[in-house]
């Protein structure tokens, strides 16, 4: 891809990043931060790329370290986000307080 394509993609992604997040309620800000954190763990892909072509021992050592760190980021990020979100399931008991909330909001 040429430079202009990359710039265009970057700009569109910036707008999309803004738009997508500005709709998330503050209740979900912590899981959101955690999700974003997990997503940048895709640097694992870059780490595997450089590790897969490393020739000298130093490059290998550094890139395998990168693979290790990136794996921790991506795997841990998604698992911990899942754990947080697991807690947001509405419980059956929710109905009574949902009613209360509707009254408050009306």
């Amino acid at each position: 891809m040429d430079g202009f394509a990359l710039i265009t993609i970057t700009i569109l992604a910036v707008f999309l990043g803004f738009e997508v997040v500005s709709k998330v309620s503050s209740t979900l800000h912590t899981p959101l931060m955690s999700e974003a954190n997990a997503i940048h763990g895709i640097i694992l892909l870059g780490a595997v790329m450089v590790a897969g072509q490393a020739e000298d021992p130093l490059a290998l050592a550094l890139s395998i370290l990168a693979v290790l760190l990136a794996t921790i980021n991506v795997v841990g990020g998604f698992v911990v986000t899942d754990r947080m979100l697991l807690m947001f399931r509405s419980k059956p008991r929710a109905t009574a307080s949902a009613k209360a909330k509707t009254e408050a909001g009306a």
Partner: protein
Amino acid sequence: MKILPAEVVTVCYIIAAVLFILALKGLSNPRSARRANLLGAAGAALAVIAFGLGTELRNIGWILGAIAVGSVIAVIAARRVQMTQMPQLVAAFNGVGGGAAALVALVEIAHSDSPWTLGVVAFTVLIGGVSLTGSFVTFGKLQGIVTTRAVTFPGLRVLMVLLVIAALAAGAALVVTADVLWAYLLLAVGLVLGVLLVLPIGGADVPIVISLLNAFTGLAVAASGLVLSNVLLLIAGTLVGASGTILTMAMAKAMGRTVAGIVFGAFRAHVAGTTSSAGSDRPVRTMEADDVAILLDYAQRVVIVPGYGLAVAGAHHAAAELAEILRDQGVDVVFGIHPVAGRMPGHMNVLLAEANVPYDALVEMDEVNPRFKTTDLVLVVGANDVVNPAAKTSPGSPIYGMPILAVADAQQVVFLKRSLNPGFAGIENELFYDPKVSIVLGDAKHTLTKVLSSVKSTA
């Protein structure tokens, strides 16, 4: 292995990018959020597997080994950690991600020649390094390993300026000479900068810093996408950079200050003086836990306002149990959640959700505020600034302009806190001296447990 043609791999990257977008989108609704997170994970897995199947890789044993070890560490850490320690775990994961981005760029220098690519490498190494040590100092502060006080020393600013100049110089040298040694220097500068950037930041500002460093790592990943000409890294990193920036600004705004003010410590220095001037000679009404139980007995509509102190005391289970018992007795109870209550935005919600409070009982500020007028009793558990009327009435106050929970509209307000000390912003709360306000002194968990047993015995 080279099974997949390059076109298929690229298509997989694009699909993964779409899955990441859907993951971020899906988080706007608690019902779809969990599935959205799985989509994101699937996207990451798809991209890495597609790459592995599309390229003849060297060192495959090492790579798989590192992935295996990393996965085990990550799963154990993510499963074992307590909910109250979530923020520091996110900080740690963020730090290793930044470190990985810096290393990737460092190794890739060997294959980079154009000045443009080298410039991007320099950026990635620096920002990745800042993110790595910055996140770990943050981790240390939250975990109590590093002091949560704002650490400053004379000449800090000068040192920072010198380091930034050194970074610029090393970056320029890297671009011109393409010598990898400059990159190591840059990394070293980044690592030191990360420490110095976060050390002077006070404990309660730390959540904002996590969010900021998260955005930093996103930028570093986007930059490595440019270095490696990989569209997925570019999109994913940019999405995180952009959304992290918005989130950081939203958090800072909710606390009535600016990101720059936090990072450069201006605000902290200003407050430091007033923090000690806590307490005043005017009388306050204190109360015992049993009195709270009696008040609860008469109340029909109750709002519980949890704050930073509830998280510190680990009183969320007790609060949830109290709410459930009251609800079983026919009392209308909700939790009123201020956007910056807790240790990081929305953290309060996660804590209460962990304690089995149904999502619908967590009422956000805008929705709960009109409700206070018809509320009999408000329990303010370990919160202070988020209910301080100074935000509305004293233009000079550091929290002036921050929206607050209007608990003063209710019939009666009871604070559960250990002393009359001020909260994070270091300012007195006039509300303590209001005739309809009482204070139960003591640790929030302790007090709530006593209230619970009284309520149970009278029921």
